[in-house]
């Protein structure tokens, strides 16, 4: 386990804590709390006897220490990547200990987002495991004085067939460690038939801790002499303190002091927002003190931001010519020929991540160094942001990664860790910054608000002869360049420039939108609104043609082929297009599988019920979902069932993958049915789960069936790709059930009364 848990197991007493008027009793730290901000001395893997790779080491007792360098937020990556290494090593999983890496460039990217951990590190993990296996085989062969080829690895032993003998990995580590690390070219990988864990999977390494309250999240991190902070942020992005009065907060028992924090200088990037921090002896006192703060703000230019007006502006922009980012055939000429033209405007509002654990961080600045313990998706970005904010070298920032109580992209942005770091320097002791739920909702890096315009000319069979789609959204680049209004190639490549339909005359455009709040990545990112618009419009065209949507969708996907996107700037999620091309045969396949499994068109669904379909490729994974909906005469929407078929290439951990897609369907239920963030005079209007609801057990799809399509393609993403097809499939089902087309999310705002 991580250092955190190792320390925890010692179980020790913490002395008397005196807190102003509160005198707290002697406390016993539970298992898992951090003891000290000890200087970082490397991983267990680093200190192991055999250590051919930064990712793991083997001790003489046979313990295999594997480093999880990616962050665990519920996707199981802390289990699944080590599992790949353990398989190629032929290690006994029961003798594997996983430890969490600090932020350190030697591991390569630790940016745990973009559903890319397995895709990017599958080969590296296999190479690491195969390297040590070969070294152990060579060590055994030398001891037995037999050729290497007479030895093989078998579950933590090297065995020799005749005469029968074996040596354990632990016994061989000393000898193996003396051998040169073999060249990559010498490595031999296991054939799939010999895999123990890949494709079979394993439950989460942390499972027992997760059900017993022992798992340590950022919210649970602790340092000796730590104080607690709660920060009143400027209600409008970029706002500054005009004046503030802290007399009342300082009267609150347990409150120690208040500290003003400078507002960031644009672009905001991952800087702290600014505001007034209340420092106290416990979280509650900090929250109470903060409520009594009286701050007068200088709001600045973003105070003119109002969501209703902004929506109209965006929709108007989406109706004007934009910047073409993909252009094939003669779109304008084809539209000019006349014939039937269909148009539609889709809209997806700002969304908040609302992970169950709000942003939180513990930071300790001393002797020019900063040590942080935090739930972060990107400890290296944290190092960068903190070093910049404190003016210290990146090497002097040690970022320990706790478990994350959900991330969904929010915790890729380490502003809250920067905030804790600045405060620790000012207070002169460890500071734990705890964001309230209200802070989390109001001061998120929101999912972009988007208006998408779709237009198609159709022939007499209802098939498109010309297609124009234009997307307008507050772009993520605005977080790094305050003047950015156009989408990045990566955002536009999320289900938009890569539209897979076989249409001769096709143009994809992007229009500008300024951001007045912080914009960031949210699970599946731009695929949310692009998938919603494209797959809803597909269904509109199918109904216009009088055709079954599954048949029509297959017709639009066209011939099985590899999409040629050479003429566009297509980033393909950072993946090599040769290795991860867009293959319409795989899109067709998931459509066919989900149609069959869901009983598309074959089941009697009853009054008010219907199915809808959508397909979407994202993060190099192909996903089709059929949502079954029931709309009551009062207009209430229930989701009795969803079926999802996916082709993610090789799936390392099938059970966890199914769980990810089930979860994606629930996450998407929230954004489709009820999610909406709005601003008035620049300030966010929502605050907590009462006004920013997310799906509950009675609102989530009752049946949530996941089908993994067997594939030998290289492994792609599984954390995010389940999200995009759900909302359009749901709205398509609602249309089939009611004849009402929902083009603006959330559905809760639509009137679906019979």
């Amino acid at each position, binding site marked *: 386990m991580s250092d955190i848990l190792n320390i925890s197991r010692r179980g020790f007493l913490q002395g008397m804590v005196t807190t102003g008027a509160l005198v707290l009793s002697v406390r016993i730290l*539970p298992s898992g709390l951090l003891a000290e901000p000890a200087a970082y001395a490397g991983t267990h893997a680093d200190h192991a006897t055999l250590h051919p790779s930064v990712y793991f080491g083997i001790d003489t007792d046979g313990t295999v220490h594997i480093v999880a360098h990616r962050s*665990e937020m519920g996707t199981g990556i802390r289990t699944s990547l080590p599992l790949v290494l353990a398989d190629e090593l032929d290690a006994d999983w029961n003798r594997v200990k996983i430890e969490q890496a600090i932020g350190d460039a030697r591991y390569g990217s630790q940016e745990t987002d973009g559903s890319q951990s397995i895709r990017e590190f599958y080969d590296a993990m296999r190479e690491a495991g195969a390297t040590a296996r070969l070294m152990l085989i060579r060590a055994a062969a030398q001891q037995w004085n037999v050729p290497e080829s007479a030895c093989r690895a078998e579950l933590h032993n090297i065995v020799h067939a005749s005469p029968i003998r074996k040596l354990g990995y632990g016994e061989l580590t000393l000898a193996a460690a003396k051998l040169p690390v073999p060249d990559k070219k010498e490595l031999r990988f296991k054939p799939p038939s010999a895999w123990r864990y890949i494709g079979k999977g394993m439950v989460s390494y942390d499972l027992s801790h*997760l059900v017993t309250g022992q798992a340590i999240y950022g919210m649970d991190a602790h340092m000796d002499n730590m104080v607690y902070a709660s920060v009143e942020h400027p209600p409008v992005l970029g706002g500054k303190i005009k004046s503030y009065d802290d007399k009342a907060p300082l009267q609150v028992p347990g409150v120690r002091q208040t500290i003003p924090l400078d507002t960031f200088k644009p672009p905001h990037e991952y800087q702290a927002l600014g505001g007034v921090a209340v420092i106290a002896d416990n979280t509650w006192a900090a929250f109470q003190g903060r409520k009594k703060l009286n701050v007068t703000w200088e709001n600045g230019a973003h105070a003119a931001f109002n969501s209703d007006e902004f929506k109209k502006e965006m929709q108007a922009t989406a109706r004007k010519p934009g910047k073409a980012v993909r252009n094939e055939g003669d779109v304008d000429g084809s539209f000019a020929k006349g014939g039937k033209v269909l148009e539609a405007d889709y809209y997806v509002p700002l969304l908040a991540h609302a992970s169950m654990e709000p942003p939180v961080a513990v930071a300790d600045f001393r002797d020019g160094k900063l040590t942080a313990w935090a739930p972060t998706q990107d400890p290296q970005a944290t190092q960068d942001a903190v070093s910049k904010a404190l003016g210290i070298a990146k090497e002097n920032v040690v970022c320990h990664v706790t478990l994350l109580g959900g991330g969904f992209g929010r915790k890729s942005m380490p502003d809250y860790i920067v905030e804790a770091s600045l405060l620790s320097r000012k207070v002169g002791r460890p500071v734990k910054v705890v964001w309230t*739920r209200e802070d989390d909702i109001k001061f998120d890096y929101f999912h972009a608000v988007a208006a998408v315009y779709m237009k198609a000319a159709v022939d007499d069979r209802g098939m498109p002869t010309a297609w124009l789609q234009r997307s307008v959204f507050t772009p993520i680049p605005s977080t790094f360049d305050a003047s950015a209004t156009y989408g990045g190639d990566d955002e536009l490549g999320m289900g938009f420039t890569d539209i897979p339909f076989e249409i001769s005359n096709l143009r994809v455009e992007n229009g500008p939108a300024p951001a007045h709040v912080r914009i960031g990545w949210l699970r599946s990112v731009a695929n949310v609104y692009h998938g919603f618009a494209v797959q809803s419009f597909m269904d509109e065209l199918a109904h216009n043609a009088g055709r079954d949507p599954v048949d029509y969708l297959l017709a639009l996907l066209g011939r099985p082929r590899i999409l040629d996107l050479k003429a566009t700037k297509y980033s393909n999620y950072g993946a090599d297009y040769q290795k991860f091309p867009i293959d319409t045969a795989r899109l067709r396949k998931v459509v066919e599988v989900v149609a069959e499994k869901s009983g598309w068109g074959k089941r009697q669904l009853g009054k008010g019920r219907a199915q809808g379909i959508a397909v979407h490729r994202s993060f190099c994974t192909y996903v089709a979902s059929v949502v079954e909906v029931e709309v009551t005469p009062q207009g209430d929407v229930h989701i009795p069932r969803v079926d999802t078929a996916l082709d993610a290439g090789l799936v390392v951990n099938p059970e966890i993958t199914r769980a990810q897609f089930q979860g994606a369907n629930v996450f998407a239920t929230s954004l489709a049915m009820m999610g909406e963030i709005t601003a008035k005079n620049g300030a966010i209007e929502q605050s907590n789960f009462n006004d920013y609801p997310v799906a509950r057990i009675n609102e989530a799809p009752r049946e949530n069936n996941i089908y993994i399509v067997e594939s030998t393609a290289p492994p792609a993403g599984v954390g995010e790709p389940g999200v995009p097809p759900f909302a359009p499939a749901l709205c398509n089902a609602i249309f089939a059930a009611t004849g009402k087309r929902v083009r603006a999310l959330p559905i809760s705002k639509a009137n679906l009364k019979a």
Partner: protein
Amino acid sequence: MIRLKVNGVERSYNGDPQMPLLWYLRDVLGLTGTKYGCGMALCGSCTVHRDGKAIRSCVTRMSALAGSNITTIEHLSSSGLHPVQKAWMEHNVPQCGYCQSGQIMQAVALLNGTPHPTDQQIDEAMAGNICRCGTYNRIRAAIKAAAGERA
């Protein structure tokens, strides 16, 4: 001075009587298995048992707890795992796991009062507990399995 029992241990508290139980558990006693999620009894992450019944510790003031017997996730079972925890593991319920202490405490309270809940009863009992990872289908299955185990 407020006297109460937490996980079988007698405690006395003489701090701010308005402080919710959640922060007493977490910041004073260091029992961090109980989570903060919303502070308004909207999400259920902070669910603990008071005299066997599920309560939201984030809105329950210390002043209301004199003589109470509080049980948290850390002390759900005195001998190994509680059947509900076992069912949670068998069904691979947790993803990030942050809400699961609250989910489990809520499910145990449900099953204590209603050993064989219907889907409707599960909905009613569990609708106050949010899981943002979306583990609801597995929560339902685990509750049913735990109910079966008790039969």
